């Protein structure tokens, strides 16, 4: 009902007359009913009696003494029967009609009292009375509206090589970050900058939906670089000690052959090509970019240190739960207090961001904290465990080599006990390419002699 409706309590003798006149004047009254209410206390009934006495006076005054008295006696009897219950008549009408009823009530000597109000206009009035409540509601919607102008969540999609943190860190410097106005973010500019900063990213698309910035990224498997053969003269030297097993020269002159022992820094392939004339005299030295594959058997040593005892955390099964809220930079967390002071706890935190819809994120975070009690103790590792661990480390290490294409000939592991640690020495015999490009040392004298020779 748009107009609203009121429930009215009616008291007085001329109730029926009141209803008849209201009907004659075309006022709609519905749901006339009698309700029984329990009398509250004796004191209440005394009050009622006084009220009645007053009424008789009023009746005497109105010169309708006899009828009034009869009525009064009747009512007395009636009230004796229903000493415990009080009967009141209520009806429903609209607020506009209630105003029109007032003169009729005066005329028929009944008293009207509104007991309930329903409908939209009264709801509005109620709002006016609870100004703070309405203010709060308005502030809430205003805040929601204002927060929709900012970015509250940045997410990435399709990045495998770069973590979200790396990209976020980079975007912080642009700066594009959570809490920025949406109008200040230029997606095209952001895309350009990301593409320029990360050559591995071949395609970027930034998208602002709701309060969320989504950056779609596609990465290259490797950077495609045009292979340009370097023309600068150089020679190849040994990167580590070893015994040469195979040598393939593409450019330059080999200084070693298979089976030679080399030391780190020794020249393997020279970049200087001497040119002799017919009389086998040196005419000129051409400097070239030496290019070769020199495989050598080398020995690699690797050492790991493992503490003799390690800390193990055994869960006792006791848990403490807590909650936390974060609004922008303010953080409030509540965790059930610890009863035993000396126990140790592991804390886990699950964070969720509040969002109204799929893309309307808000700067409000909530989460659950779980603390699990544990008892730490030191466990001394046995030799078998150490050797297990050494095997595992070695396997991981070898795996790494195999991925790089290094051939493994043999491995040897020794475990030594020092004071508080176990030391694992691994010796690996591998075949790898030891050639390393290095510039040709300038030998002024030789050049001079060649010039003199000319």
């Amino acid at each position, binding site marked *: 009902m748009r107009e609203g409706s009121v429930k009215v309590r009616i008291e007085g003798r001329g*109730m*029926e007359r009141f*209803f*008849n006149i209201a*009907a*004659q004047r*075309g006022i*709609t*009254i*519905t*749901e*006339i*009913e*009698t309700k029984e209410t329990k009398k509250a206390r004796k004191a209440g009934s005394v009050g009622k009696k006084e009220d009645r006495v007053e009424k008789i006076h009023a009746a005497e005054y109105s010169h309708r003494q006899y009828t009034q008295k009869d009525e009064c006696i009747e009512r007395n009897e009636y009230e004796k029967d229903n000493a415990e219950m009080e*009967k009141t*008549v209520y009806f429903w009408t609209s607020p506009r009609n209630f105003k029109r009823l007032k003169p009729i009530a005066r005329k028929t000597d009944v008293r009207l009292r509104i007991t309930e109000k329903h409908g939209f206009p009264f709801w509005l009035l109620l709002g006016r009375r609870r100004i703070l409540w309405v203010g709060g509601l308005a502030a809430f919607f205003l805040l929601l509206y204002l927060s929709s102008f900012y970015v509250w969540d940045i997410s990435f999609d399709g990045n495998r090589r770069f973590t979200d943190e790396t990209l976020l860190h980079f975007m912080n410097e642009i700066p594009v970050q959570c809490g920025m106005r949406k109008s200040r973010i230029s997606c095209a500019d952001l895309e350009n900058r990301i593409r320029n900063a990360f050559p591995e990213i071949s395609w970027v698309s930034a998208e602002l939906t709701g309060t969320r910035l989504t950056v779609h990224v596609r990465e290259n498997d490797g950077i495609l670089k045009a292979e340009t053969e370097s023309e600068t003269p150089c020679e190849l030297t040994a990167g580590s000690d070893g015994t040469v097993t195979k040598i393939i020269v593409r450019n330059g002159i080999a200084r070693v052959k298979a089976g030679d022992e080399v030391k780190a820094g020794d020249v393997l392939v020279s970049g200087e090509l001497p040119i002799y004339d017919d009389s086998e005299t040196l005419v000129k030295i051409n400097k070239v970019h030496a290019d070769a594959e020199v495989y050598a058997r080398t020995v690699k040593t690797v050492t790991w240190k493992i503490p003799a005892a390690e800390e193990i955390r055994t869960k006792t099964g006791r848990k403490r739960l807590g909650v936390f809220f974060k609004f922008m930079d303010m953080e409030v967390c509540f965790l059930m207090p610890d009863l035993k002071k000396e126990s140790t706890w592991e804390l886990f935190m699950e964070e969720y961001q509040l969002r109204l819809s799929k893309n309307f994120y808000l700067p409000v975070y909530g989460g659950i904290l779980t603390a699990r009690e544990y008892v730490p103790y030191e466990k001394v590792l046995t030799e078998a465990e150490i050797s297990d661990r050494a095997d595992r480390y070695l396997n991981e290490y070898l795996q790494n080599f195999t991925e790089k294409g290094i051939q493994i000939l043999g491995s040897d592991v020794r475990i030594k006990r020092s004071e508080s640690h176990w030391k694992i020495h691994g010796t690996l015999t591998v075949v790898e390419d030891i050639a390393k490009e290095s510039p040709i040392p300038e030998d002024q004298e030789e050049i001079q002699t060649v010039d003199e020779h000319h």
Partner: protein
Amino acid sequence: MRGQKKDDFPRMDSAGVFADAVGGETLLTLIGMRAVHIENYRSILVYTDTEIRIQCRHYILFVSGKKLKICYYDKDEMKISGRLEVIRFE
């Protein structure tokens, strides 16, 4: 004539409308014992939750029962609901 019965009560008057509607007679429609719909009444004389007296053209209609309630009323008609027990003309 045999087989033909003459109705004492005239169903229709000369104009072809129902006689009860034009005569200003009170019409009662009972809906079981829960409610009664009254048309062509004059005024309410007494209203309590156990008895209601209604002034009609030639008589007073007395309705008694329990938890009586006037659902709606206007100048000519009203509906009373509740647990009806007696309907009497006085």
